[in-house]
């Protein structure tokens, strides 16, 4: 399936303007986190609406509509990455020293806790430092909570590639939280 083409839509409820308006903040948030530019995010969301309306007029329900539209948006984002050519999409080169980012977590004070607001800020900032594909993998699987096969399809990558992207992205985020002094309690 070419990148940017919507997958076949689930059958059921109708896409209408109200449903789309309701989902707009979700799509804008996802797109902004992925591309880090407001203007580009807005364009990609617009393209997603057009693709969705052209693809099918029926959906199974609200959560399915979200998942379906996030899938379309993801293909638009991957297409944008390809156009701007900032990353070789099939790059599976291992990190120079895999253990450097995977080093066991050092001991910390046992009462250190994750402060939710601070942890969220650290994660948002660190998301911006991941490679584009690592970020997309984390956004789809951990933020949107798609299954791995759904995420792989949306990104147009093989399961083994997605696995590597998730592994790298998640450990970078984990390390950023630890470096900020935020440690999960036992």
């Amino acid at each position: 399936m070419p990148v940017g083409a919507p997958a076949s839509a689930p059958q059921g409820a109708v896409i209408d303007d109200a449903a789309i308006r309701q989902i707009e903040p979700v799509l804008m948030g996802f797109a902004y986190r992925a591309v880090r530019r407001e203007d580009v995010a807005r364009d990609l969301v617009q393209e997603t609406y057009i693709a969705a309306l052209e693809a099918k007029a029926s959906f199974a329900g609200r959560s399915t509509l979200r998942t379906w539209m996030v899938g379309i948006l993801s293909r638009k984002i991957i297409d944008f990455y390809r156009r701007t050519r900032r990353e070789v999409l099939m790059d599976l080169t291992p990190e120079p020293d895999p253990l450097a980012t995977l080093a066991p977590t050092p001991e910390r004070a046992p009462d250190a806790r994750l402060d939710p607001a601070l942890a969220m800020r650290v994660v948002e900032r660190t998301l911006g430092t991941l490679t584009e594909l690592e970020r997309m993998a984390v956004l789809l699987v951990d933020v949107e909570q798609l299954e791995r096969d759904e995420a792989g399809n949306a990104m147009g990558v093989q399961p083994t590639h997605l696995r590597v992207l998730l592994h790298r992205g998640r450990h970078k985020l984990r390390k950023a939280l630890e470096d900020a002094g935020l440690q999960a309690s036992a």
Partner: protein
Amino acid sequence: MLDCRRAHESLSDALDGALPWWRRAWIRLHLRVCPGCARTERSLRASRDVLRGLRDAPPLRDDDAG
């Protein structure tokens, strides 16, 4: 160290339930005897929880992410 490396390579898969049962059992055993890997696993799980919390939250813009 080799065991820790193997464990680290599997922790992300374990989060998604993407490991066969024998690998899951081995990881569980390793985490019981290795405090470093157990802490890493907890941190990884905690950072995933933070990410899940972003699902319906508006994104912080780069200029206010601090």
